[in-house]
């Protein structure tokens, strides 16, 4: 199939007005806030070297924090702030999505605005400031009538840099719940949908480029005192903003919001849930690519209505339990504990997505290894790779303790690349996921865990507190409970990991429903 005829382009295009509109909205708000803070600060500190140095140093430090980390930091910070305002003033706000993204991006935009603002103001010929005073201007009049207009071209260059940074970094706000062009990139990376990745990258680059060029036009207009160029640039920016915002403005409430974390299985399941709700006549959208700590809080706060999580994850991360219980007992405890937060655990989907130590089948046979206990004897000569959280999770500690595992080396890896890495021998063992389709694809095997060191990870359906009594919703979801066995999920995941038109989450979700719907 030729690249241009690939239906995924069409699918990508269908999300464009939503993603682009949200992207522009959060970027614009962040930039406006950043300017509103930085410009006055630049003006206030222009003649005060000490505060100026401190301010610039702080802004530089912010800049060295990676964008993703900065965005991620604002989520718990706001969560804390929200609980404080709730306790003190009885009002709370959503720490999810727009607000943390806007604040983090605003902070990110400050350095270039501050730096150029100060440079611009300090770079003015002192003779002109003296002249302003000499013709009878007050300090304020001198600032407004002389200093700011003269510094404007340099300030504008800073604003231009800030705009490009903000637009680029805004793609990273997807995991904290802010829809952006990053949704393409995160979804594409997780589901190996390179069409989406390309589309997202191009769209955000194009947006940044367009804004940069238009602001550049304004800047050159200011520099050369050309009203025409300044005006054209201004009109261009206004038109761009209007064109991207208007289509998403009038949109009515989006109905039920189905959350999904940042991996393929979640994308497929959220598409499946959304389809089921829509089939029942309920309006629903999927909010994908949410960070795994963000998503639970978002559910609790009602920012999303439902999503699929895993019993072992909730047990360790939300209940902070380190003990391991048998499957049924753990589920029952979990249900009770979640009910205290008014979260409904509607039921299990029927499969488990647990961590498992995975090695190539051939290698396992060659080594004569079937269980983790067998592996322990060879561990000191082997290397292991896991995802970014695995080695700091209690399961890993439990595994090491139960089997006395001591590997030669351990590495962290992007989950998508882990399987290929173990298949090619780049690493010897990986901590994979039992429901992953790649296990079959690469002819790998998951080692048995005879001592049950790894807790059960049943996929469970969670509902937000406000949906506890929603019978229509629950009726629409019930047909899915217990229907998806591990083999089916693995196959679905394998399909989703493909790189063709049938591997989009939407397509796989349809396939999955066809498989399990009649059961």
């Amino acid at each position, binding site marked *: 199939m030729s690249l241009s005829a690939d239906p995924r382009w069409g699918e990508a295009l269908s999300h464009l007005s939503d993603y682009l509109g949200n992207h522009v909205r959060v970027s614009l708000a962040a930039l406006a806030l950043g300017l509103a803070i930085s410009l006055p600060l630049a003006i206030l500190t222009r003649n005060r070297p000490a505060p100026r140095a401190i301010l610039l140093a702080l802004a530089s430090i912010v800049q060295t924090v990676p964008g993703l980390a900065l965005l991620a930091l604002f989520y718990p910070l706001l969560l804390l702030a929200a609980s404080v305002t709730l306790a003190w003033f009885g009002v709370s706000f959503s720490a999810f999505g727009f607000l943390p993204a806007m604040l983090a991006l605003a902070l990110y935009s400050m350095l270039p605005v501050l730096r150029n603002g100060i440079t611009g103001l300090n770079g003015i010929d002192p*003779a002109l400031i*003296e*002249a302003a*005073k*000499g*013709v*009878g201007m007050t300090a304020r009049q001198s600032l407004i*009538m002389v200093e700011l207009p*003269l510094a404007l071209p340099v300030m504008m260059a800073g604003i231009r840099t800030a705009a490009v940074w903000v637009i680029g970094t805004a793609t990273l706000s997807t995991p904290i719940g802010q829809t952006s062009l990053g949704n393409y990139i995160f979804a594409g990376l997780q589901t190996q949908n390179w069409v989406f990745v390309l589309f997202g990258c191009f769209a955000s680059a194009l947006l940044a480029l367009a804004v940069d060029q238009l602001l550049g036009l304004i800047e050159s207009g200011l520099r050369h005192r050309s009203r025409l160029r300044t005006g054209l640039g201004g009109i261009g920016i206004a038109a761009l903003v209007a064109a991207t915002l208007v289509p998403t403005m009038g949109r009515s409430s989006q109905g039920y919001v189905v959350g999904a974390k940042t991996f393929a299985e979640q994308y497929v399941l959220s598409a499946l849930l959304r389809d089921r709700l829509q089939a029942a006549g309920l309006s629903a959208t999927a909010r994908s690519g949410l960070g795994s700590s963000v998503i639970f809080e978002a559910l609790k706060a009602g920012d999303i209505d439902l999503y699929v999580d895993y019993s072992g994850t909730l047990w360790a991360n939300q209940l902070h339990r380190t003990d391991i219980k048998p499957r049924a007992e753990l589920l029952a405890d979990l249900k009770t504990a979640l009910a205290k937060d008014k979260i409904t655990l509607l039921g299990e989907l029927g499969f488990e997505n647990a961590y498992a130590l995975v090695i190539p089948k051939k290698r396992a046979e060659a080594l004569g290894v079937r269980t983790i206990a067998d592996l322990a004897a060879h561990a000191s000569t082997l290397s292991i790779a896991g995802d970014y959280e695995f080695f700091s999770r209690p399961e890993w500690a439990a595994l090491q303790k139960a089997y006395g595992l001591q590997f030669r080396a351990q590495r962290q890896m992007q989950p998508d690349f882990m399987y290929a890495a173990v298949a090619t021998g780049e690493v010897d063992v990986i901590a994979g996921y039992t429901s992953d389709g790649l296990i079959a694809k690469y002819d790998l095997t998951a080692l048995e865990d005879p001592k049950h060191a790894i807790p059960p990870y049943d996929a469970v359906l969670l509902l937000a507190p406000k949906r506890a009594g929603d019978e229509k919703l629950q009726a629409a979801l019930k047909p899915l409970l217990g229907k998806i066995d591990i083999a089916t999920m693995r196959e679905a995941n394998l399909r989703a990991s493909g790189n063709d038109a049938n591997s989009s989450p939407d397509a796989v979700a349809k396939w999955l429903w066809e498989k399990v719907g009649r059961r």
Partner: protein
Amino acid sequence: MPSKLAISYQQVTKSFGRLKAVDDVSLDVAEGEFLAIVGGSGSGKTTLLRLANRLIEADAGTITVAGEDVRNVDPVALRRRIGYVFQSGGLFPHLSVADNIGITPKLLGEPPAAIATRVDELLDLVQLDRAEHRDRLPEALSGGQRQRVGVARALAAKPRIVLMDEPFGALDPLTRDALGDDYRSLHRSLGLTTVMITHDMTEAILLADRIAVMRGGKLLAQGTPAELSNSGDAYVLELLRTPRRQVERLNALLPASGAA
């Protein structure tokens, strides 16, 4: 006889750190007088001028303008009353010629129509073509035109006193001569009091009624050119030697026949 004083310095001192830029200077400028301040670079001329409209404050001594101690006058109001022509022109590069000239009236809250009329008057006064120059930016003017705009700006709010800091210093000799003459006649016709800094003794002699000589922050001498030539101070005589030599050489090179 000079009656009222426009500006009076009494034992004025101004230091920058340990440097006494103006050192115990007493100097009177009578109303309607054209005074030139002459002296080498760094002798304190600019500092002395800036003290008069409180662009800087004196450390010691008293300065009066129109009989009033400047310390009792709001500095912003004071500066709007006194015209100032800056050494390098000091025109605002982002404002048109008209906006530059009209700036002080605008600050004084005069209506735009009145300012526009005044700007045209001033363009005529400094002999710039209204239509051609009004809307230009300073960068589109020659050096001489810029200084003419600087003079027009200083006169815009109809000040009684004009301070000029080497206004024609950077111009070619012909332009400089023409501008000096033009200003001199404005000074007379408008009845202004003018204090002009120059490092060129010839210019000072040709334009000013009286000359004050500065050196190392001190006022060395003051008086009419004739009075100065009777001075016993070696530096003052040294300063006067240059114009004298110029006259002698010019007389030798340009025999009187041409004038007939």
